[in-house]
């Protein structure tokens, strides 16, 4: 029997996600994939592997088991996680054996966490990707009792490791200032409108999903501009569109490919993680940058990505923990899974 990941309990929004399906825009299919692709890069570094499919966990995780020894990388928004009752460090990879119970609770900060097995998820692919694309009926939300097929883990017994200090992107879970680059429709907005947008304070709104993130503000939206008469144009993740009542929405992985709402700018790729991982409380501010700064920022971001592996460090476990580990294993079957409450 081939290996599998068994889901005993699932939060309401779990789905399999990878880097999506690029290059199908002409046929109306947006890229989709993980809301926070950086988390998949982090998992790849921790697992010494290429970026692979993960379970995306918005807000709440679940309870998981495996049928063969492997490792699990825990990346993205930090969540409360235990293995047979022993707390697991986040931004880290840990060995897991059949019979052990992995419980992942709620996010401590940020929005969406990722569970990536070292034995790569081997569900059926569509156009080269295993990512669920929920609003077009590709894949589905994961449910309790679902079983995901896994491939073989090339190094199931590699010891636990973590990203030192959370890694180079470890500060993206608490909002902050997000840099915008001008887009094809930025010139439709005047200077006063752009200034008003950059002076406002935004938070994540409740009407956020895998298609878009609502940006709420107490400021009167003087940056609103009606679309009147403009033909719909290509749109993509990162674009900030101004909807009919002036509310900005950041387009995300499952956005449409063509849209009619005017777009005031696009979030620089280096700041997308900070945007998508800003929960309902952290404040977000938008600022426009020029192309020289945008190019320099992209170079810095790319260099940081390349250095991810260098921040992977062995996780040293206190030997005194080991007797506790064994005792927790004995009672693991009767814990109530309160983390999901």
């Amino acid at each position, binding site marked *: 029997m081939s290996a599998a990941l068994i889901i005993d309990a699932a939060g309401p929004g779990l789905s399999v996600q990878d880097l999506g399906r690029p*290059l199908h825009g*002409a*046929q109306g299919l947006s890229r989709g994939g993980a809301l926070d692709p950086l988390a998949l890069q982090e998992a790849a570094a921790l697992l010494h592997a290429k970026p692979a499919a993960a379970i995306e966990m918005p807000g709440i995780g679940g309870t998981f088991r495996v049928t063969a020894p492997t490792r699990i990388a825990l990346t993205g928004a930090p969540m409360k996680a235990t293995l047979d009752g022993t707390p697991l460090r986040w931004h880290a990879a840990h060995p897991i054996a059949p019979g052990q119970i992995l419980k992942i609770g709620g996010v401590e900060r940020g929005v969406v966490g990722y569970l990536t097995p070292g034995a790569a998820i081997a569900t059926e692919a*569509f156009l080269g990707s295993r990512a669920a694309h929920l609003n*077009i009926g590709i894949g589905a939300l994961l449910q309790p009792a679902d079983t995901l097929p896994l491939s073989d883990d090339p190094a199931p017994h590699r010891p636990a490791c973590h990203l030192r200090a959370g890694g180079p992107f470890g500060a993206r879970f608490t909002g902050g200032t997000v840099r915008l680059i001008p887009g094809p429709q930025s*010139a439709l907005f005047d200077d006063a409108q752009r200034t008003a947008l950059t002076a406002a304070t935004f938070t994540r709104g409740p009407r956020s999903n895998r298609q878009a993130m609502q940006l709420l503000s107490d400021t009167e939206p003087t940056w609103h501009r009606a679309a009147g*008469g403009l*033909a719909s144009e*290509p749109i993509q993740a990162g674009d900030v569109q101004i909807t009919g009542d002036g509310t900005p929405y950041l387009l995300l992985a499952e956005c449409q490919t063509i849209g009619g709402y005017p777009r005031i700018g696009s979030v620089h790729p280096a700041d997308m993680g900070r945007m998508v991982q800003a929960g309902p409380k952290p404040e977000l501010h938008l600022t426009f940058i020029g192309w020289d700064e945008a*190019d320099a920022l992209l170079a810095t971001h790319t260099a940081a990505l390349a250095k991810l592996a260098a921040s992977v460090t062995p996780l040293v476990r206190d030997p005194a923990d080991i007797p506790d580990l064994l005792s927790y294993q004995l009672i693991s079957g009767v814990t109530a899974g309160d983390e999901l409450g």
Partner: protein
Amino acid sequence: MDPQAHIPAPQLLPLGMDAYLVRFSAAFTEPANRAALAFAAEAADLAGVTEVLPALTSTMVRFEGARAPARDALQTLIDSRDWLALPPTSPTRIWTLPLSFDGADAPGLASAAQQAGVSETEAVTQILAATPRVLAIGFAPGQPYMGLLPQIWDFPRQTGLTSVPAGALVAAIRQLVLFANASPTGWVQVARTSFRPFSPGSSDPTPLRAGDEIRFARVSASELESLAQQPLGGAKREDLA
């Protein structure tokens, strides 16, 4: 006033860090649509280009590598001819899609006919006589924007949204859109087809292409039901040499 209206088309504008938008017109025109399609076909062959996405009046071109050489190559292609003067092309593929105008399949037919100022019978006659082209594929997978219909169909989209089912053919602004999945829309549903523009299980999940010509054949609601079981929902495709 559109502050860009005075800028002569086409415009070359950055779209994110790895793409450009070439805009041939801010508002829909048939010459700009032809330009967008033709430009996409040629831009796809430029060195470093990874993806082209022709929309209604603009084309997105994604590239790998530095921005400056990509921009220069695109500007050279823009300058190589008068894209807005391209003559109409002949279609290379012609589809015939079955349409039911019966009852629940056409809840907005009366409203569309009224807005167009014709009887429902005349509205159906005009749709069946139309040979619209696929102007762009987008919004949702495989979903076609088709047009143009005669001038009387130039009524606006509704501000309120109504729900339409998969296969709904909807009209507004002289265009038709065919919905792949149930969706809220401001367009008005004038008919329904058994053809689905997105079928993930098939070898060609999004069978329509921008530039295809579309014709419609009227069937009854019950015939439409049985056609749904056939390949491509009973749609027929003719390839011209």
